[in-house]
């Protein structure tokens, strides 16, 4: 059974950033506003996405719409993967 994209992203955030109560990390929790991931922590998130999913994150894609929450990150990754599959 393979692990889904949202599960992998969630696990990465929980493992690498100090989240006091894992239950409190919802799919739409704002990572930056809640102070879970600061702007330099984004470096690690992007590195993880590139390594784990073999995608490239361009400058213009490093925006809140793509990276702000577990849900948004997962959507972003899935779009990239679909593009790769079809393109």
């Amino acid at each position: 059974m393979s692990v889904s994209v949202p599960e992998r992203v969630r696990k990465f955030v929980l493992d690498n950033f100090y989240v006091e109560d894992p239950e409190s990390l919802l799919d739409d929790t704002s990572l930056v506003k809640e102070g879970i991931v600061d702007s330099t922590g984004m470096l690690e998130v992007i590195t993880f996405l590139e390594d784990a999913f073999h995608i490239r994150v361009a400058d213009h894609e490093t925006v809140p719409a793509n990276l702000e929450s577990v849900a948004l990150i997962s959507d972003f990754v899935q779009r990239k993967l679909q593009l790769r599959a079809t393109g």
Partner: protein
Amino acid sequence: MVGAIRYRGPDEFGLYRDGRAGLVHARLSIIDLATGQQPLSNEDGTLWVIFNGEIFNYVELREELEALGHRFRTRSDTEVIVHAWESWATSAFERFNGQFAIALWDARREELILARDRLGVRPLYLCEHRGRLWFASEVKSIFAAVPGIPRALDPVGLAETFTFWTVVAPQSVFQGVEELPPGHVRVVSARGSEQSCFWRPRYPAGPDEGFRGSLSEAAERVRGALLEAVRLRMLRSDVPVGSYLSGGLDSSIVAALGRQAKGSRFITFSLRFEDAEYDETPFQREVAALIESDHRELLVRREDIAEAFPAVVYHAERPLLRTAPAPLFLLSKLVREAETKVVLTGEGADEMFAGYDLFREARVRRFWGRQPGSKVRPRLLERLYPYLARSPVAQRALAREFFAAGIAEWRAPGFSHFPRWRASGALLRLLRRDVREAARGSDVVGRLLASLPPEHGRWDHLSRDQYLEVRTLLSGYLLSSQGDRMLMAHSVEGRFPFLDPDVVALANALPPSYKLRGLDEKHVLKRAAEGLVPKSVLARTKQPYRAPDAVSFVGRSSPAWVEELLSGGALLRSGIFDPAVVGALWRKCRDHGEGGQFSNTDNMALVGVLSTQILHDAFVAHPPDAGPPPRFTTLVDRIDRGQP
């Protein structure tokens, strides 16, 4: 031989010799003052040892060895070494929690065993000359004792110094002299010589290896390991132990834990600088007040640095690119005057817990290297170096170019250190052409990278970077030129809790994100230090220890010897540097003057040239002084009595 280094052990002198080998020792008495004389033997006098250093777990090892049937005559840690060798041979050394250079002579098998501690706290040099092997704690000891021995600087050693900021063992800066690498043992007999590695740094080869607990658990373990390391080093001594306080996180942790371990006050020692940009006095005093230490301070001015510099180089026995050792030389004198023989210091924390800017830089540069065309990624450099964000556009562009060099090779071994090695490599242009060509031809970077352990490629990036820093700068420069040499110059022993085997093993096993969290350095160490050191110390941005460099040698108070050593005549005599290039450098530095801002390269260049000239004068042009012959309190002479 030992007269030349009597400052390393002014308390007692001892000698053993037979028809095949000689051991001579200068003792700095710290444990078992009454009966711990050296050389020291096993029960039947067939195995002899001399050593420089401490075996902190000697109490526990002694219990084990007594249970195996060994009989002890003294209370010293030294005696543990002979019996440990008898029972465990080369695997004895990995059981030692300590810092040491050891020479064992097995008179029956006619075998010499030389060993050096894991990280190179204590020095050990070897030199073969006319069929004899000479070994000593310092090169001057060999040069003073052996009249016909050739003395010359090695261009390969100079190439390493100007590239890595240090030589990397076994390479020394002298031709024909080698240094036993840290964590190695060499067994020498008439049949030949064999060298093996009993320990080297290890890191997890994948996420399934290494420490698996949470960050909080890690912080707790770190604190526990450090407390035990400090306890051993604070309490296992028959003379008073003090502590250095730089004002930074690492030495503050050590001093605070020292207070906990000891339960009463002790002396702390700090450096103060006239130049405000180097001074850390307020933080030092805050920690001293917190632990209620008997706090001593030494104010260092540029003139003090210049005046001490020749002695500093004489003790360091290698070219220096920074004057940072000089204040430490002066500080150990203060320690001696305070009748203290031992100090704890914070060395090693930046290597083990990822404290240096270099590690953060490497992380940013790798991130950038994945997308070399990105405009956004290099902006993270401004987070590391805020001055960049405030600089004119041209300077930002130049800095970017500096960091961008080789950026696409972010997976390559050595990537983290390329900017430093490239910048220092520019210093090679100072060398006279033939010396430079010999230096360039030796490909010191290639040689170092070829010697990386085979498992290196399986480590995470941070671990690889840490390994390189441990292998080069920690052993070769910090523990030597800023550590052992400056301390022992005034007969003071340094002890380094961050280099304790359990602390090192734990630190190396931690996930990289616990050490470098995003760009927050030494994260788990800061967590471990909460409640232990003042908040202000925890909140400080990293300030590397430095002293005024080139500026110490220009201006009104510049000593006459500076101009002399940099003169055309002196440069021609030593034959190392190109007089025209050095002449231009010196003119530039003089023009900058006392108020000048020197570039990093010019700082390193001027200090590098001066120190190499001093070194040449003190070791090559003339042999080092052998000093007055010592009076031996221990004398075992088997030559005349014809005993085996």
